[in-house]
């Protein structure tokens, strides 16, 4: 029995087997072998097995995420056939009489370092692919098999930390909880956990070397605790809590179809934040009034090249149709900073949060922007789509955006394609936008306050740095005053205003927001009914 504590990201109670995801694998030992032929045939067999696994992964990925995103597994197959790579492994086994595991690991490291030292960001990123294929061969050599994809049974995912691209690939139905050693309460794992209604703890003080996949663990993130190999008494406690949780959920179910209205008749819209087309299921399931933030990055991340207009159009259209006439607010590309895609070739920045990102990329590379805008304008014919622009700091930017939208419309006119120019709003997530919100309100149809970035920029605190968590006050007076100011300026100009950052889901603030006159809160789908419950109990 090992009890560890961490920071609470999403509250819940669960129990099950753990799956430990380790980076770079275990230390591989060098062993002197005598029968090189046997070693070579062992190598050959495991490469064959690896190729089969990759083929299966490729087929699975094509079905689930499309051919473009699946291409990475095809590339892995090709890399594994590389003559130089294979020759280097063979030579090591034959000339140095070492075990195949060691030869593969060393060769993998050498090749991967060569790529890491290239001056091209895309090629640097390929060093991870070489490590990946080498790890796969080593895993098969040591009979550990393929633990890339989880089995049928849902698991508690235990890891050092998870990157956005790793989480994107996960099968959401098979995760009971997230338990990570690194990460902060605002990291991407955290955002994902809230989206999926999955108990999560980050910054957990555990030793991954003591843990093995298949161990049982009990997660109680309501108190920030995880117990590995719990005793029978602890199991009973957890099971009782799980039952309680189920009943609470049942109570919330009864609120479906009801209005978000206080006893005195104040009304507020509750919409949901999503990051992929499949998340619409969660939105409908939790009875959200619309989609207040649809992060379009999913179309751009984890792939090798830009998504086409048609691909984007199909995705937006699908969401708009699935939501029937309900509002779907789609935020344009918000890439850069902590969200990277190699093919954008953004390069490294000293201060990415304040760097070349989001609308700044779109305004500098209008062709990328226009592709997305054309897809959005076309999809608007099929439902109640609104477009939202991130990271605005000036009203000139809004003017320029409008020009580009007009150009995109003109291009569609020329092609004779059906489209509609929908309502357009901006994210208020920089202190600059707050201070000129009176001016901006006259130019757009709505505001949505992105509290995560607004707080980060106002307090000068990096949201990914968990050493700063003690300095971070989510309810800082400065931030609250800014929000108040934005609401007043929006209403003075006759437009609506909402919150789509994590503060929107902060149950301690729900009453404050309603009293401020906030028109909308957009939150993780799993929070919709909880907020409705609070609002309906308000005076």
């Amino acid at each position, binding site marked *: 029995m090992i009890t560890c504590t961490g920071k609470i990201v999403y509250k819940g109670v669960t129990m099950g087997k753990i799956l430990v995801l380790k980076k770079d694998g275990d230390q591989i030992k060098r062993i002197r072998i005598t029968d090189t032929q046997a070693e070579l045939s062992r190598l050959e067999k495991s490469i064959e097995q690896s190729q089969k696994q990759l083929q299966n992964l490729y087929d699975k990925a094509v079905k689930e995420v499309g051919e473009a995103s699946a*291409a990475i597994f*095809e*590339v892995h197959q*090709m*890399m594994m*056939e*590389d*003559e*130089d*790579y294979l020759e280097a492994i063979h030579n090591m086994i034959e000339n140095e009489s070492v075990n195949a595991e060691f030869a593969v690991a060393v060769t993998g490291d050498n*090749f991967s370092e*060569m*790529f890491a030292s*290239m*001056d*091209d960001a*895309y*090629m640097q990123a*390929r060093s991870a*692919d*070489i490590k990946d294929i080498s790890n796969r061969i080593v895993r098969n050599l040591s009979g550990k098999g393929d633990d890339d994809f989880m089995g049928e049974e849902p698991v508690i995912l235990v890891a050092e930390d998870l990157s956005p691209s790793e989480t994107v690939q996960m099968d959401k139905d098979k995760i009971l909880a997230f338990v990570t050693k690194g990460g902060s309460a605002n990291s991407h794992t955290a955002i994902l956990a809230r989206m999926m209604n999955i108990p999560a703890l980050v910054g957990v003080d555990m030793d991954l070397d003591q843990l093995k996949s298949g161990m049982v663990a009990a997660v109680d993130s309501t108190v920030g605790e995880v117990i590995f190999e719990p005793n029978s008494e602890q199991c009973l406690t957890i099971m009782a809590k799980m039952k309680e949780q189920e009943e609470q959920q049942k109570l919330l179910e009864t609120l479906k179809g009801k209005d978000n209205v206080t006893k005195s008749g104040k009304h507020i819209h509750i919409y949901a934040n999503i990051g992929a087309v499949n998340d619409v299921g969660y939105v409908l399931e939790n009875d959200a009034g619309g989609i207040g933030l649809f992060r379009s990055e999913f179309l751009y991340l984890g792939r*090798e*090249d830009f998504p086409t207009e048609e691909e984007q159009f199909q995705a937006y259209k699908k969401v708009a149709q699935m939501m029937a006439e309900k509002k779907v607010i789609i935020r344009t590309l918000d890439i850069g900073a902590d969200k990277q895609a*190699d*093919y954008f*070739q953004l390069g490294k920045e000293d201060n990415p949060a304040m760097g070349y990102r989001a609308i700044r990329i779109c305004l500098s590379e209008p062709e990328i922007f226009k592709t997305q805008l054309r897809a959005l304008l076309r999809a608007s014919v099929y439902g109640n789509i609104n477009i939202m622009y991130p990271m605005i700091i000036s009203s000139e930017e809004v003017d320029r955006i409008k020009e580009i939208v007009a150009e995109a419309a003109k291009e569609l006119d020329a092609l004779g394609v059906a489209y509609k120019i929908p309502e357009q709003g901006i994210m208020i997530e920089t202190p600059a936008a707050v201070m000129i919100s009176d001016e901006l309100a006259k130019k757009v149809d709505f505001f949505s306050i992105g509290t995560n970035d607004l707080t980060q920029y106002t307090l000068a605190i990096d949201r990914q740095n968990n050493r700063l968590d003690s300095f971070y006050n989510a309810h800082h007076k400065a931030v609250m005053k800014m929000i108040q100011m934005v609401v007043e300026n929006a209403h003075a100009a006759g437009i609506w205003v909402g919150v789509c950052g994590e503060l929107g889901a902060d149950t301690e603030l729900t009453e404050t927001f309603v009293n401020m006159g906030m028109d909308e809160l957009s939150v993780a789908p799993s929070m919709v009914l909880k907020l409705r419950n609070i609002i309906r109990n308000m005076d």
Partner: protein
Amino acid sequence: MKTFDYVIQDSVGIHARPAGLLVKAAKEFSSKIYVKKGETASEATKLMSLMKLGVKCGDTVTVEIVGDDEEQAFTAMQTFFEENL
């Protein structure tokens, strides 16, 4: 020996996937096929070595073909570069 120069159009250069396809295409022939960028060269049948050339969009590469079926290989390679890179 037959050679041709080609200016790379693909926005990320000779990246992993087209390099992989090139390897497949080159293995169809018995001729030796080389891709050269400046002073460095790689056999077209070697994926990682091709990628290590670090060929970017706008770079000019020279493709050199030597062997029995160099005529057919030459045409095939020209078509391949135009279609994929």
